[in-house]
């Protein structure tokens, strides 16, 4: 069988998925692993199908929680990034703090958030935000700080204010960095939400997996995993699409 090159490139990732599912199922069967330890692919897909109602409900909860946290992260990340990217003083003052802050494991913060806000959606949003804003700050900051001095001179000599330079040159030039960061951040935001939901919520995929796990309903746990990664992939794809639309000039061929 011969396929055209573009066709093969398109099918390859799907073939890889199918192959993985087959290997998974075959391995589980070959070693006779019990379902409550490690369910096979078929059992997982079956769980995904039979419990699609509750999975959908909890997935939606996780999805919008993540999105809210992520959006706050984008706004805060942009503001902080512009601050440290346009002022050497702010850079020197804030950067060490930001790094220190970022190295705190976010799981450790969840219990504190629970004390402050109770269990539920709020700690999940905040965790998603906390985990997702840092890459944006760093990338936007770097993008702005590395604008060629000559490019700035061309504008400055015309009497451009700092604001003009920022909007005409700095920000557009940082867009590739920014979108690169968005792709990382959206994935991290899902991690943040789910971590918080497993510990401190009674809604969301994290909670679903936690409670299903405690009842030894492993196929459902795995179905939850798949739901998360599907959502993360869709959002990643959306970011990549947006990136291509907005910063096509950076990927010239």
């Amino acid at each position, binding site marked *: 069988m011969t396929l055209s090159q573009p066709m093969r490139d398109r099918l390859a990732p799907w073939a890889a998925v199918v192959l993985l599912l087959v290997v998974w199922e075959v391995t589980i069967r070959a070693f006779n692993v019990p379902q409550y330890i490690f369910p096979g692919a078929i059992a997982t897909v079956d769980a995904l199908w039979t419990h699609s109602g509750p999975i959908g409900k909890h997935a939606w909860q996780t999805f919008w929680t993540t999105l809210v946290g992520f959006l706050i992260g984008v706004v805060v990340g942009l503001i902080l990034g512009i601050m440290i990217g346009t002022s050497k003083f702010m850079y020197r003052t804030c950067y060490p703090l930001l790094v220190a802050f970022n190295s705190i494991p976010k799981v450790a913060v969840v219990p504190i958030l629970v004390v402050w806000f109770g269990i539920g959606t709020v700690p999940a949003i905040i965790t998603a935000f906390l985990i997702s804003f840092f890459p944006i700050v760093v990338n936007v900051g770097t993008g702005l700080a590395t604008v*060629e001095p*000559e*490019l700035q001179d061309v504008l400055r*000599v*015309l*009497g451009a204010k700092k604001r*003009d330079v920022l909007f005409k040159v700095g920000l*557009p030039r940082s867009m590739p960095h920014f979108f690169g960061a968005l792709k990382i951040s959206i994935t991290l935001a899902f991690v943040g939400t789910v971590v918080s939901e497993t510990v401190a919520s009674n809604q969301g995929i994290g909670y679903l997996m936690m409670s299903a796990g405690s009842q030894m309903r492993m196929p459902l746990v795995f179905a939850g995993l798949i739901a998360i990664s599907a959502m993360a992939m869709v959002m990643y794809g959306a970011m990549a699409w947006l990136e291509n639309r907005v910063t096509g000039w950076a990927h010239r061929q």
Partner: protein
Amino acid sequence: MPELAVDQLTAADPASGQPFVEFRNVSLAYDETGNAIEDITLDIRRGEFIAFVGPSGCGKSTFMKLCTGLRPPTAGGVTVNGKEVTGPLSITGMAFQNSNLLPWRTVLDNVMLPLEIVQPHRSRLRKHRKEYEEKALAMLEKVGLKGYENKAPYELSGGMQQRASICRALIHEPELLMLDEPFAALDAFTREELWCMLRDLWQQQRFTVVLVTHDLREAAFLADTIYVMSKRPGRILESRTVDIPRPRSLETTYEKPFADLVLSLRTRIGAVRA
């Protein structure tokens, strides 16, 4: 309403004695390592074309920054158009070795960039966009870029990018054009082509030009006056008036007076570098 014809620019007035740019004992030190340029005194007439040559790192780009007000001098004073320079001067246009076109803008939008910054164009641009666009298109046509206005910069060759960059430097009709090795990255043929382009633009519009270059033939072909600078700290060693008659054609550069001039400059610089 201001007239917007490209050709209409302040005419050269060699008659009036007042120099357009005046440097009086100017020095600049970036940091504690000492002066980058030192004790520069010179006059540039309105409409004059001057060239700076000198060894690398001698302060030619620094001179540009002083002239345009991007940097204040640490000693001495700079006057442009009768006024002490205290900040960026929007009557200047600049182009560098890198064309520095913004890759996310089309060629036309790149050329129009200064109009989004400099007054009075800035406030007029929205209402009179058509008119300004026509002006930019006319400029692009003049430098041989007709039909490329909607391309992205990376779709243009290096020489074409440099042409666009010079259009951008001239679109707001600056009285002073600063060129920092604008043709250094081009091949010999393209470079000579752009010399002629610049010569023609200058001859039509008679703005004042400060050209920094490493190419002595370029300096001799284009300039009225050539300044030779010393090694760091940069001082002016010599100012040489080029008396080859205008209009100059590329053939001139193969004639004896031209060759002699270039050779003597070459010898001078050789001595500086040693």
